[in-house]
Structures are given as C-alpha cells and as structure tokens.
C-alpha cells in the first residue's frame, strides 16, 4: 500500500505502528480541519512527524443508500412478493424474507413527506413499524397474506448497504428558468437568484486521500454513528475527475439517528442523510501534504439545472471556500448560496472518530484491494432517439412593431400560419400575435398592433426535449412556442401540429 518517495528524508510509518500507538493510547490524531491549521502554522514536515491519523467527515443526502433486512420466517411461511412497511413499498430482491429498503421509495399514503429514508431512521430509533406483505403462495411457502409489527430488535439482520455514498465533490446548482424549480439539489429560485451545493469540501474523506492510497476495500470507517466498512468503489465512481464514490456497509442496529436521518425534498422525493467519516493514516509525507488541502484549492462547476438535459451548461468554476462563505458571484451579481449537506454534523463526525481513535476504540485497517483510479462513468446507451425542439421546429413568420394590422392579417393568410412573432430590429422577440388576436382587432376596429399583442410570451429553447416543450404548451393552454436563443433572438417556432405530426408518424 505505502508508496514512499525514495529520497524522502522523513521516515515513513506503517499502519501496524500506528495501530500499536492507538492501542497504547499514544496515537496523535487531528481532524482534517485541525491538520490544515497545523500544516499552515508549522509546515508539512512537522505535521508529518507529529501526526499519525487525520479524521474526515461528511453528512449529506445520499439517495443511493439502503438497508437490507431479514425478518425471519412466519408460520406458515411466506415468500413475500409485494411488501410495504409503514406504507413504503419495499424491494424484495432475494428469497422469501430478505428485503431492501430504498430511501427514495415513497409512502403511498404520504408521498414526498415520508419514505424509505424516514423508515430506516424510525427503525434505527427503535420505533415499531408496520409490515404488510402479499404473495402468490407456493407449496413450500403457502401463505399469501401477512401483517405484523416489527422493531429492529426483531430483525435478524439490519445492515446499511449503500451503493454510492460519499461523493468526493459535487456540482453547485443554479436555475436560469423563469420559474422556481425543485430538484435533488433543493429549491432553486428563478433567474439565478440562489445557488446550492453539497459536500464538506476540505473535510470530505475522499478529498483528503484523492489517490486512494489508504481508502480501499476493507477500510474501517465511521458510518451512521458506528463502525462500518468500505466494500468497494461506489457506482458512477470516477476517481480521475475527482468524482470518486464509495460502496459501504454497516450494522444499522448500532447506528444513531444523529448521523442517519430521513429527508423530504419537495417535489423531488425522499432521501436519507448519511454520516460518513474516514480516518487517513499519515503513512508518508505525501499524505500529510494531501490532508492539508484547503477549500480554496477545491473547485466545482456551477451548473444550470434549469436546462433539462444530461449535460447541463457549466457557467463557471467556484471554490468550496467561496461556496462556504454563503454567497458567490454569477454574471456580475452576488447571489446567496445554501449548503445542502451539514458542515456542523460533518465536523462532529470527524471529531467523534478522532475521539474513538484516541481512546483506543477504533483501529485502522489496510485495504485488501485498491479502488479503481482509471474507470470512466459512461452515459447511457440509448437505442431509441429522443426528439428535441431543434429537430421539429420550423421557420417562424415575424413582423415588426410598427406594421399595420392589415399587413399582418394578410401575412397570416398568405403564409397560412396562426402565429406571428413580433421582433425588434435585432430579431429579438418582443411579443406574439395569433390569428384570433388579429380577427378580434379587425372586429373591434383596432388599428395598432400594440393593442392586441401578447407581451408575456411562453417560449422554448432549441436544446429542450420536445416532451417538456409540449407539456409547457398544455400547461399554458397554447398551441405554439417561439424558439429563442439565450439572448432572446427568434430561431423558429414549434407548434402543437409539429408535435402531433411527430407522434402520428
């Protein structure tokens, strides 16, 4: 495991030596935040010489988590098919009575407010939960209906088995749209009026060992308030772009709801906040240097979640230092920034882990296998094409502000359209008129376009999925959307006829 620079003047130490010191109560342990201060004040050589272990921590919403439970067999036995606990649908991936609680599965009676994350929290808290199951019945498992109440003490196993946790860093989210959107990155106000981010930055476990020298399969960690283990890289792990993730396991019966909490994200769904802390043994000078990383050296992208695509526009790079300051600049404006993960709890995790090590309760383990450093997180292979606005839009018929209504009326007839987009001299949209607006104007004897034009125009962007544009038309009860670029220049128009043609093809 240990990689030493051959010319290093400092003597490296081994994990065995550190564990011996921990057993004797002599280990020198700092939290990652304390380590950074020590390196700044005394230099990395001194820090390496004096410090054996650095503890890290993070506490954030980690949707790709879950708990595996085994309920034991009923009499007569049942091979559970459909299962609900506290009205939350439960996955039954295995044999008869093994269940997997996913935190994003939502209660059928209180959707968006109570879900698998809350259920895991309730179980950890010792609460009694209500299980309902149905089955098709077999010769060996004859029962078809079951209802019972359970607590964690009644379960044979109750393990957290989280398949993607502890992201090294994550996007900062903003919203360019005209409306507030509710995302897994929280509530995002329109026109870039706020930003949200997640992650503990310089306190994040993987940021302090970015080359996975000490964190690997088998690393003992703090998980949800007890000892757990890294069991491999998490799904979507991509170490080389600093998007490393972990798969972890821990005994949920011993966990504490201080470090494991259900969460409700409005209009997104439910989740689970998970607390993870990882000790980094300072085996060599390089690790002392790496654990000294500061928030100002950790950057992430500001991403526009207003664009409903996989690859969303990245607007700038921002450091965790700026994010943690509570505000940042975007397009020359100061906007307020919210953290979605709790730095307060992350600090408490790093501190608790430090205390466990200092009091000889927690020994470090060497990984039995390194985590991959070079794998790539691929996008989905899609065998069916998704239509986008750009693919179906056609040229728009436009007019200027000062054109007489009679001219516009004749253009509607000759071009055989229902919508005329009003543009300024730069081709930017200023309004829209429909054949109905013009008919009414003629009937009422109005001459000026200004009397009939609609100024609040609902529009589409060319790179939007057509499905989203169609829903917008339905929502506003309109039959066409001018397609504009980011500066408001008219690129074309998409109508409900375009959509029906596509569906009827």
């Amino acid at each position, binding site marked *: 495991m240990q990689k030493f620079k051959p010319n290093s003047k400092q003597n490296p130490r081994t994990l065995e030596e550190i564990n011996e010191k921990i057993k004797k109560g002599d280990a020198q342990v700092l939290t990652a935040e304390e380590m950074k201060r020590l390196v700044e004040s005394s230099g990395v050589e001194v820090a390496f010489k004096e410090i054996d272990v650095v503890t890290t921590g993070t506490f954030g919403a980690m949707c790709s988590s879950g708990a595996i439970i085994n309920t034991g067999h009923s009499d007569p036995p049942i091979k559970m098919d459909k299962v609900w606990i506290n009205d939350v649908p439960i996955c039954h991936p295995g044999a008869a009575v093994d269940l997997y609680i996913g935190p994003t599965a939502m209660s059928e009676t209180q959707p968006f407010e109570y879900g698998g994350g809350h259920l895991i929290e309730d179980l950890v808290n010792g609460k009694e939960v209500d299980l309902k199951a149905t089955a098709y019945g077999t010769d060996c498992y004859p029962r078809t209906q079951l209802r019972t109440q359970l607590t964690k003490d009644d379960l044979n196993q109750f393990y957290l088995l989280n398949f993607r946790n502890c992201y090294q860093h994550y996007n900062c989210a903003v919203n360019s749209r005209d409306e507030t959107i509710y995302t897994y990155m929280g509530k995002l106000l329109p026109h870039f009026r706020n930003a949200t981010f997640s992650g503990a930055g310089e306190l994040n476990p993987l940021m302090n060992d970015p080359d996975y020298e000490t964190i690997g399969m088998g690393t003992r960690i703090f998980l949800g308030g007890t000892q757990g283990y890294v069991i491999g890289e998490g799904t979507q792990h991509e170490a080389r772009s600093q998007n490393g993730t972990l798969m972890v396991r821990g005994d949920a019966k011993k966990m504490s709801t201080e470090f494991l909490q259900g969460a*409700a994200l409005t209009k997104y769904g439910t989740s689970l906040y998970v607390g993870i802390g990882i000790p980094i043994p300072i085996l060599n000078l390089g690790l002392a240097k790496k654990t000294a990383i500061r928030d100002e050296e950790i950057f992430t992208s500001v991403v526009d979640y207003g664009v409903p695509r996989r690859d969303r526009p990245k607007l700038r790079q921002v450091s965790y230092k700026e994010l943690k300051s509570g505000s940042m600049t975007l397009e020359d404006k100061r906007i*307020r920034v919210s*953290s*979605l993960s709790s730095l307060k709890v992350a600090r408490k995790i790093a501190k608790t882990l430090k205390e466990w090590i200092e009091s000889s309760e927690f020994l470090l383990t060497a990984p039995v296998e390194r985590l991959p450093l070079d794998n790539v997180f691929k996008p989905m292979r899609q065998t069916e094409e998704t239509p986008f606005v750009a693919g179906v839009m056609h040229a728009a018929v436009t007019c200027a502000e000062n054109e007489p209504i009679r001219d516009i009326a004749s253009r509607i007839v000759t071009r055989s359209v229902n919508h005329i987009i009003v543009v300024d001299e730069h081709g930017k949209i200023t309004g829209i008129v429909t054949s109905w607006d013009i008919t009414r104007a003629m009937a009422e004897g109005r001459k000026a376009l200004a009397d009939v034009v609609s100024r609040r125009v609902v529009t589409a962007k060319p790179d939007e999925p057509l499905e989203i544009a169609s829903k917008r038309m339905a929502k506003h009860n309109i039959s066409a959307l001018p397609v504009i670029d980011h500066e408001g220049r008219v690129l074309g128009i998409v109508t409900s006829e375009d959509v029906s043609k596509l569906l009827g093809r």
Partner: protein
Amino acid sequence: MVRILLRFSEALVEKPITSQIILELKVPINIITAHVNSKGGEILAEIPDDALDKTVKAFRAKGVEVSIPKLVEVDMEACFSCGTCVSLCPVEAISIDKDGSVVFDREKCVGSTCSACVDACPARAIKSVKQLGTIDKGGLKKKAQKQS
C-alpha cells in the same frame, strides 16, 4: 420597532384604513408585506415602539384584527443545520454561525407572509405559523420584545 399583523375582513379590504391611521396619528407605519384575496387582507407592518398602543387601538376601533405575528416555528431538535434554507430567505434572516448551526433572526423574518424556506427544509423542521399570539392590554410590548 414592533411588528404587528393586521387582518382585514372582506368588508374592510376596500377602505383606506391604513392610510387614514397614518394621517390621523402621524405614525410612520412601515408595511413589510401585504396580501389581499377574496376573503380579506393581511398586512405585516412595523410600528415605532412609542406609538404602538395608540396605533393598535386605532386599528381595532376600525374593526381590524391586530396581533403579534408568530412568524415561523423552527424545531431545533429536527434541524440538522444543513443550511438549505439560507439562500431562499429574501430578507436574509437565516444564517450559519461559526460552529455551523443555522440561526434564525426573528427580527428580520417576515414569517407566514413569505414561507419561502418552509418547503425547502429536508428535515421538515420549519413550520409557518398562521396562528397568532394574542395581545392583552399592556401585555403587547412585553410579547413584542420577546420576539427579538
């Protein structure tokens, strides 16, 4: 300054009561938020301490319901100080202190008339409170100060 919440019944909404009281009493009433719907109206206003009693009396004499707004209720047991609410507050009443705890400034909060933070809380620890503190004779100032 003391914040009071004024409730106007349907019948009172169309009358210029607030303007009349400002003119009659020469009190600089600062209107923070105002909402009107078919069932009536609601104004959150700031009144100078020394003019509080007479202003409240004047509003009540004109049939307006006056109370101390209980703004938001935060369950600090449930709050795990993520800070999601911080950037949503239009009056910057929510901040994070040195140790990372989320702190609500009740002086600045405009409460149930805004509620932007309520649906953003993943712990569902923030409740918008429509129910209002009652004002007893002479008890008004005391209660108002408790809000700070």
